[in-house]
């Protein structure tokens, strides 16, 4: 709870520091604050705590995801420090919104009551709607914010509808209460209960941009400022996945047979549509948007199979995916800043313009594509083996085929960086903070690939 309270306070401090012309201090304060939040949440390790009349349930699962998301936010805030000028919204507000969104995300992974799930989603989403539109005078940014808001509001409404139905049937908002009801009435569950499960599932599918509820994602990812896109692709997605897993494993674990097939179809569609659409894109940001849709499909693979190791697999995958995304979006930010162009050509000859950045992006792409020794390989492997342990062989083969398609477009960037001639000889230099973030994420990516045990058995 300390972590949650201090995170909210940190957001308010960041907001206020803008008032008192302490703008230069916003980034250092929030960095220190986020590190403190990670420390506070890890301090609760192994101490399953129930807070606020059992509204929140802090266990190792919620702690690792909280820490992962706080760490990712920290990296993004650091990247943002050089980007402040490119947005119209003052730095204090933007950072405060990022922190509020993280607070919502934290509630989403710690809920034990469906109202808290709803609140968490709302806290996170509303902050991100604003962030998506934070380039006020840019047409695409406005479009992104509006689209995201409209779609997101519908999705939240649908979730709420589902929660109401579940409450109507079971008389409880608590995960444990729902679970108890399901156990007691496993053969006589009314159809309205299943309708509730389905509606919640659909709403969550919106949030993690799963097919066929993904249409907002490419436009929003492309239109939003790249720093915000990075946040959406990492923290927002991780929160959605972790909440979905928590909900389905804790409340509906006993009626797996009823929803696993639906989720399996969504997963199959998501990875296939995401990966195939990514191939034909010309804009790197759009490609990454579709690739992020595709990754949602792999995440779902671990969720619906509900293997013994699914939670750990999701964690490892989320970590690998977030680290790689941060580096890739850093690359997009830098290239976009220099060439004003987010097509693949912008990356031409990057290896000559900035070898370190090119190498970091290459490692991130290897991780995304799932090639050893990067973390993505171990992550993919653990997700696939979670599915195989439950005999979903055909799904894994489909996922393998999709991974192959993924390699195709990830390597377009590698080819552009290393094998194409640069369009301009101008060097691309990073600030020392960006270099630090780059080197740190690279090291972590390879470390997790060589030693996944560091986080593979936490939950």
């Amino acid at each position: 709870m300390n972590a949650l309270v201090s995170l909210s306070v940190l957001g308010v401090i960041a907001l206020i520091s803008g008032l008192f012309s302490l703008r230069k201090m916003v980034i250092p304060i929030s960095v220190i604050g986020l590190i403190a939040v990670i420390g506070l949440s890890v301090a609760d390790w192994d101490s399953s705590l129930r807070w606020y009349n059992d509204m929140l349930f802090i266990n190792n699962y919620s702690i690792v995801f909280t820490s992962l998301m706080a760490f990712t936010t920290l990296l993004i805030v650091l990247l943002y420090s050089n980007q402040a000028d490119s947005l119209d919204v003052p730095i204090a507000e933007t950072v405060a919104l990022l922190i509020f969104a993280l607070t919502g995300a934290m509630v989403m992974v710690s809920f034990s009551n469906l109202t808290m799930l709803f609140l968490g989603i709302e806290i996170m989403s509303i902050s991100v709607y604003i962030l998506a539109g934070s380039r006020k005078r840019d047409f695409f940014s406005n479009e992104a914010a509006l689209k995201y808001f409209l779609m997101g509001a519908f999705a939240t409404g649908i979730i709420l509808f589902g929660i109401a139905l579940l409450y109507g049937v079971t008389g409880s908002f608590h995960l444990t209460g729902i679970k108890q009801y399901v156990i007691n009435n496993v053969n006589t569950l009314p159809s309205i209960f299943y309708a509730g499960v389905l509606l919640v599932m659909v709403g969550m599918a919106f949030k993690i941009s799963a097919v066929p509820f993904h249409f907002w994602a490419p436009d929003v990812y492309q239109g939003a400022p790249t720093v915000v896109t990075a946040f959406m692709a990492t923290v927002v997605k991780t929160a959605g996945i972790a909440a979905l897993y928590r909900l389905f494993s804790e409340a509906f674990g006993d009626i797996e047979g009823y929803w696993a097939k639906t989720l399996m179809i969504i997963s199959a569609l998501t990875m296939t549509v995401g990966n195939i659409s990514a191939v034909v894109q010309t804009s790197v940001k759009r490609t990454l948007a579709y690739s992020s849709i595709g990754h949602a499909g792999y995440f779902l693979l671990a969720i619906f199979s509900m293997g013994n190791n699914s939670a750990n697999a999701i964690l490892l995958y989320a970590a690998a995916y977030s680290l790689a995304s941060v580096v890739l979006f850093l690359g997009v930010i830098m290239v976009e800043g220099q060439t004003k162009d987010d097509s693949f050509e912008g990356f031409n000859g990057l290896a000559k313009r900035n070898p370190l950045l090119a190498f970091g992006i290459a490692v991130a792409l290897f991780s995304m594509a799932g090639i050893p020794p990067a973390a993505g390989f171990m992550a993919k492997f653990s997700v696939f083996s979670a599915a195989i342990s439950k005999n979903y062989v055909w799904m894994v083969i489909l996922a393998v085929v999709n991974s192959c398609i993924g390699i195709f477009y990830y390597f377009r960037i590698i080819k552009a960086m290393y094998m194409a001639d640069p369009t301009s000889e101008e060097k691309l230099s990073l600030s020392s903070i960006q270099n630090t973030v780059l080197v740190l994420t690279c090291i972590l990516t390879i470390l997790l690939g060589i030693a996944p045990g560091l986080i593979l058995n936490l939950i």
Partner: protein
Amino acid sequence: MISLLLVVLPIIIGIELLLIKSENVKQWAFIQSLVVFGISLVPYFSFQPTADYQFVFSQPWFPEAGLTIKLGIDGISYLLVLLTTFLTPLIILSSFKHQYKNANVFYALIMFMQAALLGVFMAMDALLFYIFWELALIPVYFLSALWGGENRVKITFKFFLYTVVGSLFMLAAIAYIYFQTPGSHSFDVAEFYTVILSDDSQRWLFWCFFIAFAIKMPVFPFHTWQPDTYTVSPTPATMLLSGIMLKMGIYGVIRWLLPVVPFGVECYGGIAVGLSIIGIVYASFLAIIQKDAKRLVAYSSIAHVGLIAAGVFVLNSQGMEGAVIQMLSHGVNVVGLFFILDIISSKTGTRQIEELGGIANKAPHFAVLFMIIMMASVALPLTNGFIGEFMLLMGVFKYSVWGAVFAGLTIILGAIYMLNTYKKVMFGPESAATIGFSDIGVNEKAVLIPIVIMIFWIGLYPKTFTDIAQPAVEQLVNIINK
């Protein structure tokens, strides 16, 4: 310990080459790769002639996830380890005449490649095998894509995509088998050999493995990446690909396909033999009409490897033993051939057979060495090619007479295209390109003479090598026919 050292040392050398950026990076790389070769000889003196893995290094990596670093050497893998460590210094030496830009990266990639290849041949853990298998791809992809010839980006990308697609299927198969192993699951090779798999699952598992290995070898119809990639790559990368990397596919079949899914092999082994034999005939005919000598050797490589694959899938000890010997011979010969083509093309500026001629008069030493290597690759008795191909054909003959008839075409057609090439390139009137051809120097001889020695050594006294592999081969044949 020595097995671990053989994987780690090349990596350390590679990192060191990356860092020092010396002018003499070639010499450094060469000397250090010789050290690796020297170390790889050490196990020979304490090698026990049994089928067991020896020099085993086992260290749990993540016991919870079943991952173990387990390396070991048995007869089959030891021969391939020796092949790798023997060829790498020669490959480095053969590149001395070239000036590659960013040379330190170039040689570091070769050393990384060597580490991954040695890992593939020594891995006793399926997942570790897979990891090394994928790791081997990355250095050679960059070697070809960064230092290659015309159109390299497109061609090498096709190569990369092809091989990754294949190996991901293998990953799915490995994960599936892992969950079938009893108890707390394991990737250990011994567990994989004893695991009980249902007939139905063996059917699809066979294809998952087969596609991965067939693409790497390559077997018809999975070969389409190969001629272009061999042609466009810089010669050291071509040598790595054809001399060693290709053997990964065959080794994979011997180690991880045949003993693990015997029922699958029983069902579909015939198709595999059939595809291999079709590949032999098809590639040989295509080789005859090639105008570019490097492309010709690339196609001949498909034909030779087709025979090895056929010999492996007929599942008798002659075929298997022939395959092991022929893997060595082919590795040595093909590196020799590519080096000879490299010498010719760097001295004359062309690889087109029509534009060459009359080199024999100008360069007698070169002509003799070329002749010997060529004879070995058309399997003339007394050379290494003969021993391997004879045993392979015997194995195929026991399986099917007609199969052997068609597979035997590899020798006849091979003689046609190789002798024809030799005639056109070495004899006849001198052409504009060859008028200034000078004989080879010490450096080239230093590469070609060890190759020639190996050709005769395996050709005249193969027992040195068969003795190492035989117990392991017999045990594998027993496991398969059980």
